[in-house]
């Protein structure tokens, strides 16, 4: 009985010990960032459905930080990351940014890869007035007049142009079937692809939307078959849908080449669809074979983290390097000089491509085209457009 009576006391002692040891750890962690370090505030999912991707983002950024510091840092000072969890939600992103932006010694930020979360922090970033690199690809993010957003990935207006250009100019195919999810992403992508094809005076023979999470695509596949299209362009949101469509395409004997939006090249889609995707083309912002820089990063990343590098890690790597370079060029961490220095970056060879910033803050203006050769993603060509 005594033991039971003492239990709460024991438990509270244990809790106190826990809190104490945690605070010691926190002090130790804080000690790692020295006072004169230049801090980069980073918002990324540590919890929630994108936690896995968030880990890759931290790894990519961390590798860039180590490399910058090994090369002497920025203006002779070391750089460090201050990371806050966005919980893969919009409110989480807002809270994370407010925690970071309340620290006056953080001069620059890295935001989310998801456009909706970037939108959520838009007003706060404008109020604080400090540069933030983003990975969200909604074109409006940099075009709505916020001077503090800079993008380290190509925006969606280029994906359609690249799909159309590759199909028409490289594959020399003119009878297009456009397949898209009817959500915002798929609808806008399909519209952009139809517009891009118009520039080649091509009217698609079939434009077919579908609702997400469909158990069956037979009617869509039959429509493609009946249209006699010789090339398929697609905007699929979910890999499951893409997998079912790909399998049924093969089963019902459609052999037209297929050029898809980035989802067709991602690891989940490759795993789900398997051989059904062999021989298809897709566009990708990061491919390890696209440049010597990407190749070196992919090798080092795999050795360090035992996972293949993808765009989740490559864009944060580029973002840290670009921020470090801009602060070095500006010889300052003040917002306006850093902003000007970012916009002045031209011909910078990053992992995602060659950065040439336009006045809106978009650094990249094209995509890689890749081919699925027996399950392996092989770099085919890089298509760039004038910013």
């Amino acid at each position, binding site marked *: 009985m005594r033991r039971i009576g003492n239990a709460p006391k024991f438990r509270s002692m244990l809790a106190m010990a826990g809190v104490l040891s945690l605070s010691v750890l926190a002090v130790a962690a804080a000690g790692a960032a020295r006072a004169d370090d230049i801090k980069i505030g980073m918002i990324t999912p540590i919890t929630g*459905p994108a936690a*896995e991707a968030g880990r890759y983002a931290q790894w990519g950024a961390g590798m860039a930080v180590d490399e910058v510091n090994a090369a002497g840092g920025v203006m002779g000072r070391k750089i460090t990351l201050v990371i806050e969890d966005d919980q893969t939600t919009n409110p989480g992103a807002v809270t994370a940014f407010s925690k970071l932006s309340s620290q006056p010694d953080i001069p620059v930020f890295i935001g989310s890869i998801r456009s909706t979360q970037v939108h959520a922090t838009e007003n706060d970033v404008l109020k604080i007035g400090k540069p933030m690199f983003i990975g969200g690809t909604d074109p409006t993010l940099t075009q709505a007049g916020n001077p503090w957003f800079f993008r380290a990935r190509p925006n969606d207006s280029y994906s359609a142009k690249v799909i159309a250009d590759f199909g028409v100019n490289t594959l020399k195919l003119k009878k297009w079937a456009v397949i898209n999810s*009817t959500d915002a992403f798929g609808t806008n992508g399909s519209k952009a692809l139809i517009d891009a094809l118009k520039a080649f005076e091509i009217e698609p023979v079939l434009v*077919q*939307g*579908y*609702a997400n*999470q*469909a*158990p*069956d695509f*037979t*009617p*869509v596949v*039959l*429509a493609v078959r*009946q249209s006699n299209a010789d090339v398929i362009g697609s905007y699929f949101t979910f*890999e*499951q849908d893409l*997998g*079912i469509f790909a399998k049924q395409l093969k*089963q*019902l*004997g459609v052999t037209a080449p297929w050029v898809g939006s980035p989802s067709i090249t991602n690891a*989940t889609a490759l*795993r*789900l669809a*398997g051989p059904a995707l062999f021989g298809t083309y897709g566009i990708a912002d990061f491919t390890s074979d696209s440049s010597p820089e990407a190749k070196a990063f992919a090798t080092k990343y795999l050795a360090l983290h035992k996972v293949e590098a993808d765009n989740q890690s490559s864009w944060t790597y580029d973002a840290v390097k670009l921020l470090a370079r801009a602060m070095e060029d500006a010889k300052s961490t003040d917002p306006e000089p850093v902003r000007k220095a970012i916009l002045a970056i031209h011909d910078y060879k990053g992992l995602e491509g060659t950065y040439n910033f336009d006045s809106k803050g978009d650094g990249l203006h094209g995509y890689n085209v890749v081919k699925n050769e027996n399950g392996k993603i092989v770099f085919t060509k890089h298509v760039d457009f004038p910013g």
Partner: protein
Amino acid sequence: MTIVFQLLFTGLGVGAIYALVALGFVLIYRATNVVNFAQGEFAMLGAFLMVIFFGDLGLPYGLGLVISLIVMAIFGAGFNLVVYYPLRHRPYLPVVISTIGASILMSNGMLALYGPAPQTLPNLLDLPGLLIGGVFLDSQYILIICVTAALVGFQYVFFEKTLLGKKLQATSQDKEMASLLGIPVATMIMITFVYSALLGGLAGMLVAPILFVSIGMGGLISLKAFAASIIGGFGDVAGAVVGGLSLGVIETFGAAYISVPYKDAFAFLVLFAFLLVRPQGIFGERVAQKA
């Protein structure tokens, strides 16, 4: 013409999936007068068990299937004890809410255990399918149609011709009367949950090669299966099957000849029409009598 047959076959295949899950709904409804909204999650769980035993642990397909079904049976018993049994004397609404809660717990539990990435399972049969006169018959769809037909036959014989089946029906119609007649009501309900978990799990394993294995797969099928059971007449075995098959066919032809993006709307338009004109469903007299 080949197109019509192709659509018909696919429609029947998709419909058979709905029917399979609808059978689980019907079974529990007949025994407890409650709709089990976790029926779709039973399918999800069954498919994930198969991924674990066959895919991850590398057991032979047959052994993996048997172990998965055993786990499903145990899960069904546990589900009864935790989700239904404590609320058995309450009106149906708390029980329904309890099953909804359980379904949320199950999908989030699986998310925490296995992560969000969808998984694959290979077709049970090695051959991909048959090509007959330009119509492709996916072997997995053929299998699903056959299994559904077999289960319908089994369920019919079970409920109408066996003493145990009749005891289950009696339990469903009037629990007090059934127990006065010496039917062990609690055991009957336990059997129902075990069997319906098996059924749901089997449905998940069968559809996995087509729909892949994902956290959301249960919700995807069960909503349509629910609509199918209402169209067929809730609580009727033949109704669940006819409802499921017709829903699959209507959806597929509607998508092909009217609109693909609004495919899901057809299912619910048909449901709406039935609720308006014939709320008891196609085979609904029995339910009306029950009420």
